[in-house]
């Protein structure tokens, strides 16, 4: 039996077993769950080599599975994140109910994502896609009644995307005669122009939903913020990347070989940038950490899509690198929120403050991830941002870069809000009891934070596989000899050398830290956050002076005209209109026998009248 089958078999059986094991013993259940995620991952990296394939038939359709270089990058995201988040979620789910349900869906999602990367044909791709959809749907509705409308919204949008994809799939079958993805790609350049337009549009709708692309993003905030945080880290980190995976395959191996593809790329890039801007603004508005991170995920995916859509070599590198980085830091942040929720019971900035001394490790992880998110050197986010901007400039997208830069500057606002809201500010008696999260939850966060630090200085580590993947899609980056030296070039030959920068930053930081510490060491002392210069008043224990309500009110006032329009409203209006219309058409069935009889007679008469036009 081939190793590939074995991997999926372990996943499937592991999902079921780790559900059922809950009846026996919880520790056993956790162990089985971890095993059913970790063992296949190990097997995958040990025994499955790129290019290895298996073929079989189902329903008279040839299916074939195998990992490509490009898929391998995303397999890093899926499995790496999957394993870490699995460890995290063991800690997260301790003492919670319906763990079996959670574990089952978790393992299934990981399996389906890996399956998507494995599928070389559209049918298995679609099947895994749908499995991914409903397993994540079941996660979204994990919290019960109040999430069901959100779940429906998510499911409907996914269905729209999936059916668009299905349409594209069957059309491609009609032109190639089979369901192989490679055949479509080879046949694509010789298609008729309409099909050349239609197929990518349909596929982009399908992938755009998962990639939370404007205007298909409305499901994302609710879904991200309502599924359990341990899963959301995978949901936003890895699952959304499946959309990116599909998008990049479409863009790189189809559109980029299309002379008329120019408009495609422009439109998509603009959609991505607008997504980024709108997502950022809404993220700044949020008072709930989950929602904030959800919107920021939407925004980050916007950058990624922009990078991939531009289609130059550097921009694609930027997009894919950002995809990896986003998977790292956003999942860390969601994990941090999960830890805080577990320890304090709330994720609202206006309620919980001053956790820095209570949960220092969580703070450290969040700080690193936030710096990476904001794209500030020397952490990994900066590399991606740098490449993105350089590619935008060098490819003359001068308006686009302004928009992107605006959103990434406005991102500082919610970055600061996140750190301040939870960890800084006044330390309250109410939260004095809070302890640091269990070690099982802290370790994955710290590992991921460390990763984002390493990638900031040595991006070559991940740029190499990305490079290989791009070559697999027919792109040949020119300066891969530089991956080891961690110097980034743009196509104008301008460079940024990461190592000197890192050393300089660390050096200066260390010097002044030492200065601040040893200067007057004896007379430097810590005072509580109650001891502040509040015009001579001594704040009482119960008075919380932290400023956390309407945090960015002036900014919000400034951008109010943009925020007034929500796409959600338009969708709801459309849906209600449809329902009303159908309610009208429903009246065809009057429930009255005579009417039905009249229908029959009329039908007969009309048929007899027009029979010669219809038949013969």
């Amino acid at each position, binding site marked *: 039996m081939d190793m590939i089958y074995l991997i999926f078999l372990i996943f499937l059986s592991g999902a079921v077993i780790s559900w059922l094991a809950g009846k026996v013993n919880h520790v056993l259940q956790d162990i089985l769950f971890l095993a059913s995620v970790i063992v296949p991952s190990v097997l995958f990296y040990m025994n499955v080599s790129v290019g290895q394939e298996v073929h079989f038939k189902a329903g008279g359709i040839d299916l074939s599975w195998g990992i490509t270089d490009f898929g391998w990058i995303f397999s890093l995201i899926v499995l790496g994140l999957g394993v870490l988040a699995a460890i995290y979620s063991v800690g997260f789910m301790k003492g919670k109910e319906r763990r079996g349900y959670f574990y089952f869906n978790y393992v299934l999602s990981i399996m389906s994502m890996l399956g998507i990367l494995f599928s070389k044909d559209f049918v298995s791709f679609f*099947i895994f896609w749908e499995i991914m959809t409903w397993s994540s749907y079941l996660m979204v509705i994990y919290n019960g*009644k109040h999430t069901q409308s959100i779940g429906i919204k998510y499911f409907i949008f996914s*269905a729209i995307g999936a059916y668009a994809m299905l*349409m594209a799939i069957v059309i491609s079958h009609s032109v190639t005669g089979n369901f192989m993805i490679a055949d479509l790609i080879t046949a694509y350049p010789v298609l008729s122009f309409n099909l050349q337009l239609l197929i990518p549009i349909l596929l982009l709708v399908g992938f755009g939903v998962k990639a939370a692309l404007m205007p298909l993003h409305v499901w994302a905030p609710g879904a991200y913020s309502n599924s359990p945080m341990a899963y959301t880290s995978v949901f936003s980190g890895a699952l959304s990347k499946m959309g990116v995976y599909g998008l990049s395959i479409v863009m790189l191996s189809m559109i980029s070989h299309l002379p008329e593809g120019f408009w495609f790329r422009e439109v998509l890039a603009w959609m991505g940038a607008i997504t980024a801007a709108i997502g950022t603004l809404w993220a700044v508005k949020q008072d709930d950490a989950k929602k904030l991170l959800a919107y920021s995920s939407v925004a980050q995916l916007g950058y990624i899509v922009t990078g991939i859509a531009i289609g130059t070599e550097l921009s694609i590198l930027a997009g894919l690198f950002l995809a990896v980085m986003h998977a790292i830091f956003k999942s860390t942040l969601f994990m941090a929120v999960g830890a805080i929720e577990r320890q304090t019971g709330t994720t609202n900035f206006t309620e919980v403050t001053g956790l820095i001394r209570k949960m220092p490790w969580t703070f450290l992880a969040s700080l690193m991830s936030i710096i990476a998110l904001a794209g500030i050197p020397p952490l990994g986010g900066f590399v991606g941002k740098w490449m993105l901007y350089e590619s935008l400039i060098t490819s003359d997208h001068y308006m686009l870069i302004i928009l992107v830069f605006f959103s990434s500057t406005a991102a500082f606002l919610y970055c600061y809000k996140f750190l301040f809201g939870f960890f800084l500010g006044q330390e309250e008696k109410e939260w004095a009891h809070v302890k640091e999260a269990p070690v099982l939850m802290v370790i994955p966060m710290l590992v991921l934070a460390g990763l984002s630090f390493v990638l900031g200085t040595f991006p070559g580590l991940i740029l190499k596989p990305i490079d290989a993947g791009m070559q697999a899609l027919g792109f040949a980056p020119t300066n891969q000899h530089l991956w080891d030296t961690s110097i980034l070039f743009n196509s104008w030959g301008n460079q940024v050398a990461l190592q000197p920068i890192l050393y300089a930053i660390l050096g200066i930081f260390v010097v002044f830290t030492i200065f601040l510490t040893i200067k007057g060491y004896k007379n430097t002392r810590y005072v509580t956050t109650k001891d502040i210069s509040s015009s001579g008043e001594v704040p009482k224990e119960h008075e919380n002076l932290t400023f956390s309500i309407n945090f960015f009110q002036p900014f919000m006032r400034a951008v109010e005209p943009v925020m007034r329009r929500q796409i959600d409203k338009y969708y709801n209006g459309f849906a209600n209109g449809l329902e009303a219309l159908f309610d009208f058409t429903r009246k065809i069935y009057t429930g009255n026998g005579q009417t*039905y009889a009249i229908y029959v007679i009329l*039908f007969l008469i009309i048929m007899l009248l027009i*029979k010669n036009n219809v*038949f013969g």
Partner: protein
Amino acid sequence: MVGTPVLLVVIPLLAAFLIPLLGMIWKELVRIIPGLVLLYMFILSATLLNQVLHTGPIVEVIAGWRPPLGINLVFSPFSGFLVTLMTFIGLMVWIYSYRFKQNVDFEPAKKYFILLMMLVTGSVGIVLTGDIFNLFVFIEIVGISAYALTAFYTERNSAEAAFKYLFMGALASTFLLLAIMIIYTQLGTLNMADIASKMPEMNTTYKITALVFLLTAIGIEAEMFPLNGWAADAYTESPGPIGAAFAGIVAKAGVYAMVRIIFTMFDVDGTMQFMLYIGLITLIVAETTALRQDRLKRMLAYSSIGQMGLIMVAFGIGTAEGVFAALFLMFNHAIIKPLLFFSGSYLVYNSKDKFIHETNGMGKHIPITSILFALGAFAIVGLPPFAGFWSKLSILTAAADENMIIIIALILIVSIIELVYYLRVVNRIYFFKMAEGVEPKKPTLNALFVMVTLGVIILLVGFYPDAITGVLHKASGDLLDKTKYIQDVLLLNP
């Protein structure tokens, strides 16, 4: 050799008439005998089908009169497949409705099972017969038993529904008879194969007129828009299992008759397009209507009509893939829709008017039924990895190969609508609080057995579609091969 096709018609008829007498011996026999008969029919048809798939079709001649003079039954892969399906569903319905209503006493039970037998027999006859007048007779049998079953709960609504059904049925039989008369006056024969072979000589005007009458008549049985007004009421007011029987057996028979007429008997251009577009209209109207229903069984009924429309679309594509997809859809629909009716009628068991909101919170109290209902809902919408997905994929592929992109788009949009209203019900089942005074009814063991069996079949076909596709390919090939059918029937050698 377990028996010949003719037994498939004779035995249940006999049984139907013997049941009362046997009931005098021992009341329970009334309930048991039909089961045995249906079981026998299923086994017989299954074995026959298995045999037919390897050797050619069996043509059974009644009373030694050779076609075209005599009446004959044709057990080809296509019809055999349908018969097997129908008998299987009939068996399931029987197992399910055994003790469906405790309070049903002897007399109604007798009626019920007799009528059920008649229903199955008529449908099987419709599928098997090779003679168009015979077809008329069997349609009448089905019709009568169906009216009676619709009116089974002798209440106002059911009586009204039955009246509507009767009304339309009467119209149907009138038109059918008219059509048959036209054909007979023109061709002087009633044998389908003979008609098919002689059809070219027929005068076009008469031919088309006859076709229109036939389509109208059969369209009523096959729930074709706008002739399907009766269907919703009949599904809703008849007992739960009977709804399943209508969806799984009667409608299939109607579609079979229509297909037989269009594919085999008539050689008129444009029939395919007609079927395609009328099916599309049926699909859209029915599904949009189902979206706005507030009664569970009514919603299921409209969704069933929509499925019939989809099947017509698949047939209307006209290619081999199209027919294959249609058969696949028929199979899935015949498996899934009964499951939905079975589980649904337990979800709203004790309620009077079967509102959807009365299924609130059932997930906690009757979990297996609920999960099976959800399974059926997801399967019929066509989510992988369930059975429905493969049929949907095949019909879309077939349509795409004919470059019917608009039609694909419409089908997909409609299935989003379908998804919406099924998802609403599932959400109600799992996320809403149960209303006051609703006491859920635990399904009886046999009902549970039936539902689980159907669910297992759905999963099986979903994960391993090859289990069924072989048969479907043979059947579709058989349907499309018109000359072979004529030869088999007319020039059969003793």
